[in-house]
C-alpha cells in the first residue's frame, strides 16, 4: 500500500511542478514526456540509495516501476483534459444558460469559440501536423505519423469509429 501512495505522490508532484512552473498555459506533451524521463532518472538515482528499495526483490521492483509508468500514462490522459475546452463543454454551457435552446444557438456558440481552428493550431504546436509550404495542405509530421499509427492500430483492432 505504501508503494502505491509513494508512486501517486511522485506522479502528482511531477505534474504539479510541471504545470505550475514550466507550462502555465499551453501543454506541449512531447516536452512533458521528455521532462518526465529526466525526472524519473533523478528519482531512480535517489531511490537506489535508499535501503528499503535496495532490499526489494527484482520482480517487485519491476512491478513497482511498471505501476509508476502506467500511472504516468493515466496522468497524461487526465492532463489532456486541461489542454482545450471540449465541444461538449460549450454545448453544456449553452444549454445551461437557457432552459431550452435551438440548434442554431449552439452552432453559433461553437463557431464563436473557433473549435476546429483552435485544434488545428494546437496540433501544429504539438508538432503532430504541419502545413505544406508549396500547396498549403495539412500533412502529418514524422512524429505525427508514428503517433497516428498507434491510434490507427487501436481503432482497427477494436473496430472503432472516429466520429470527432
Amino acid at each position, binding site marked *: 500500500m505504501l508503494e*502505491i501512495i509513494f508512486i501517486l505522490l511522485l506522479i502528482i508532484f511531477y505534474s*504539479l511542478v510541471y504545470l505550475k512552473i514550466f507550462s502555465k498555459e499551453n501543454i506541449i506533451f512531447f516536452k512533458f514526456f521528455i521532462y518526465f524521463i529526466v525526472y524519473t532518472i533523478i528519482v531512480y538515482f535517489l531511490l537506489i540509495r535508499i535501503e528499503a528499495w535496495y532490499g526489494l526483490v527484482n*520482480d517487485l521492483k*519491476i*512491478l*513497482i516501476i*511498471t*505501476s509508476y509508468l*502506467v500511472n504516468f*500514462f*493515466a496522468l497524461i*490522459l*487526465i492532463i*489532456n*483534459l*486541461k489542454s482545450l475546452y*471540449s*465541444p*461538449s*463543454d460549450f*454545448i*453544456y454551457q449553452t*444549454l*445551461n444558460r437557457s432552459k*431550452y*435552446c*435551438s*440548434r442554431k444557438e*449552439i*452552432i453559433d456558440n*461553437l*463557431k464563436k469559440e473557433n*473549435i*476546429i481552428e483552435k*485544434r*488545428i493550431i*494546437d*496540433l501544429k504546436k504539438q508538432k*503532430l*501536423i504541419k502545413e*505544406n509550404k508549396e*500547396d*498549403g*495542405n*495539412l*500533412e*502529418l509530421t514524422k512524429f505525427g505519423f508514428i503517433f*497516428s499509427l498507434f*491510434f*490507427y492500430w*487501436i*481503432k482497427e*483492432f*477494436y*473496430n*472503432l*469509429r*472516429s*466520429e*470527432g
Partner: protein
Amino acid sequence: MMIIQLLILNILSYIFIYKLSFLITSKYIYPFRVADLINLFTNSLLFFIVAFFFFSLKVAIIFLFINLNFFYISYSIINLINTSPRMKIILEIKKNKKISINQLYKFYNYDFILDNRLRRLQSSNQIEYKDSKISLKDNKFNFFKIIIFIMNIIKKV
C-alpha cells in the same frame, strides 16, 4: 510463476478480453461502455486472486492498482479515438496523406460536431428535445453535468 510473467499475462489479457467484450456488447452505462466495465472487473478480480494466491497481498494490491490504471488509460484512449476532434483531424490526414482546410471542413464541420454529440447525449438520456428545442434532462444524476463539473475542476488545477 514469476511476477513478470503474470504482468505480461495481465497486459495481454487486458487487450484480448477488451476485444472480446467489444464483440459481445456495444452498450453504454453512461459514461462507461459495458465493455470497459466487463474488462475492468474480469481482469481486476482474476489477477488480484492469482497474485494473492501465488505471491502476497501486497503484490495483489499493486496488480489491482495497475488494472485500475489500465482501465482509465483504455477508457480514455477509446474515448479519444471515438470523440476527440483532434484525433479525428489526425486520422483524416493519415487516411488522405494530405488535406486542405476546405476539404477538411467538407466532412468535419460544426454541424457534424454538434450532431454527433447531440446523438450521443440523447441516446444516453442526458438531453431532450421539445418542439425542436434542446434542453438538459432533469435527471437526479445527470452524468453530463457531473462530467463537465469534473473536467472544469481538472482545468483549474
